[in-house]
């Protein structure tokens, strides 16, 4: 027991003060595209190093979540970030949002970044958001992966099993557009081909803070901190 206490003392307090302050990202981190010539589709972008080809540059800005599919297309440096839920839904979910995660062909990159939000560094629980074990307990779904044909039925059933009103969040390029697997005959190209989506969080995979930013944005919790 003493050893556990000693370790606890040594490990200290690890939760980052987000959103009060945003930790700095490394120089090579590839965030929101800026200096866009023409247009960039955030939903199809894999945030790979060679993607820009002179058409844009990556910034350090981690905020990427949008509410509408058309907002994914960046035409200049303005991004229309996700808007808050309407008052009625916000009253329902604002202080307690239970989410059910469905991996529908995700490579486990996005899943790992969602999982990591539960650890003490990000501590999702302090915002009243929690991942639950059953769609019947959930207020919404978080979908990752391009939705493989083999997962389509399971995803539909999970959606139907979630009580109304519900929100659906698509996390990662795959869940938005099929990602690297675009063109494959074994997939549907994104979650909104199967169920209606309320929030798109681009990235391959998105950084945990990108996901957190999106969630706090729809719950209208960013300004209050």
């Amino acid at each position, binding site marked *: 027991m003493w*050893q556990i206490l000693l370790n606890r003392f040594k490990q200290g307090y690890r939760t980052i003060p987000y959103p009060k302050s945003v930790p700095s990202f490394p120089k090579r981190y590839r965030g929101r595209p800026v200096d866009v010539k023409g247009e960039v589709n955030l939903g199809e972008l894999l945030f790979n190093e060679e993607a820009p080809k002179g058409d844009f540059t990556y910034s350090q800005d981690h905020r990427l979540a949008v509410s509408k599919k058309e907002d994914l297309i960046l035409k200049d440096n303005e991004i229309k970030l996700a808007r808050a839920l309407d008052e009625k839904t916000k009253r329902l979910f604002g202080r307690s949002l239970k989410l059910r995660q469905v991996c529908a062909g*995700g490579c486990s990159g996005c899943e790992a970044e969602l999982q990591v939000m539960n650890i003490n560094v990000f501590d999702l629980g302090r915002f009243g958001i929690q991942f639950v074990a059953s769609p019947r307990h959930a207020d919404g779904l978080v979908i990752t992966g391009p939705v493989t044909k*083999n997962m389509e039925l399971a995803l539909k059933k*999970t959606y139907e099993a979630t009580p109304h009103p519900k929100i659906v969040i698509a996390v990662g390029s795959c869940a938005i557009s099929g990602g690297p*697997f675009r063109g494959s005959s074994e997939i549907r190209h994104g979650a909104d081909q199967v169920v209606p989506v309320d929030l798109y969080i681009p990235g*391959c995979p998105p950084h945990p803070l990108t996901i957190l930013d999106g969630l706090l944005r729809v719950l209208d919790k960013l300004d209050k901190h």
Partner: protein
Amino acid sequence: MSFEKFYVHNGQSWPLEQVPVMDEASFRREILKSCETGGRLVNLFGYHAQDKNLYLCAVIGMDQEGKLSVFAARMPGGQVHFESLTPVLPQAHLFEREIAEQFGIIIQGHPWLKPVRSHQDYSFYEIRSEETHEVAVGPVHAGIIEPGHFRFQCHGEEILNLEIQLGWQHRGVEKMMAEISLERAMLVAESIAGDTVIGHGTAFCNIIEALSDTEVPLQAEMIRIIALELERLANHVGDMGALSTDIGFLPVSAYFGRLRGEFLNLSMELCGSRFGRSLCRPGGVLFSLGPEMIEDFRRRLLKAQKDFMEIAELFFSTSSVLSRLESTGRISRQTAEELGLVGPAARSCDLERDVRTDYAFGMFRFQHIPVSTVVSGDVYARALIRRLEAQRSIEFLLEALDQIPSGELLKKPSALKPSHMALSLVEGWRGEIAHVAITDAQSRLMRYKVKDPSFNNWIALSLAVRGAQISDFPLCNKSFNLSYAGHDL
């Protein structure tokens, strides 16, 4: 019929016509003979050659000698039958099921020729009795994990049989690889399994480099294996955290969880992605590791090393942890050998199998990481092997940071050679990743075969829980932590 053995080494390409081709019976005999004399089935797959004929190709690894032998069989046209190897060579079971599914070959005498990734017309194994019951889980699970279906046949709490049905994640990776540009194929390779980006990424790069005779700059080789070991560390440490969670030892679970992030963040420092995306590219790497970054890495690794030692010590010196882990989900050495397990799952059953040593690739040809093994084959052994390997990886990284060669980072590969075959093995954190590619006469990829270590190891989970309690399943599952996406492709 006798033939001269054709040996290749890891990361080599060779003209397709050099592969010895035999009839089906000799092919079968040759596989069995090789596996009786110390060989192991690294890969067994089918491909349609440009002459429209269907071929089966076997890659046998002679682990002790570090040799890989390749041979093929030309299958007759029309309805094709193949006499199953599985009854005498259990490690062939899933390879044969895959071949049956991909090419419609009838595998005669296979004990259980069920689909691998398709879900059509399949009824599950059942035990009919008034005293048994069935528990079905998935594909949508309770946690944030990938989809798979698990069906337990139980007598009370005792698991009589666990049937694992996968395929939910099937995205058509192999088919895509042969249809898209190499630039896109690189991005798909990085997404075969999102926690093994460097492992599969390196394997793909090695294939392209072999097929184009590209000499990778040493600096790039070094940065690749540094990233590979960082990937191993992040996942091993994460797995130990997941085991702690399942036992209910929450402080240690939180510490390991945080520590995993330290390694992921090092990877983000190096290439902008926590999972190593955009680092490996055919011909080298896209990012350098300069003197300032090396100093920063060393400082952070030393800190992580100290933390890891302390947390691991706390985990392994707690008697309630040991009593939960020991003797749970045991796999015997013999079973592991028969099933052809790879990676930490094999090494925790006292099998000394490690691609980094047996078929050294990249910088491992010059730098060596000692192979760790544990004898007991239970969950404890699979936890301990992660601790040992993580320790060795940190030590290796600290040394490697001092020895990064100078020079180029990337040498653009030239065009691929026509009608060639290439093989690349990489020891990912789960074990042996094997990629094989064949080009056609126009130098395009016409067959790309991916084997994730999970493909070898899923069956071990079924056997580990046989006779155990249902409540042991989560622990056993975490102790293997296999990839669904890597299996389903």
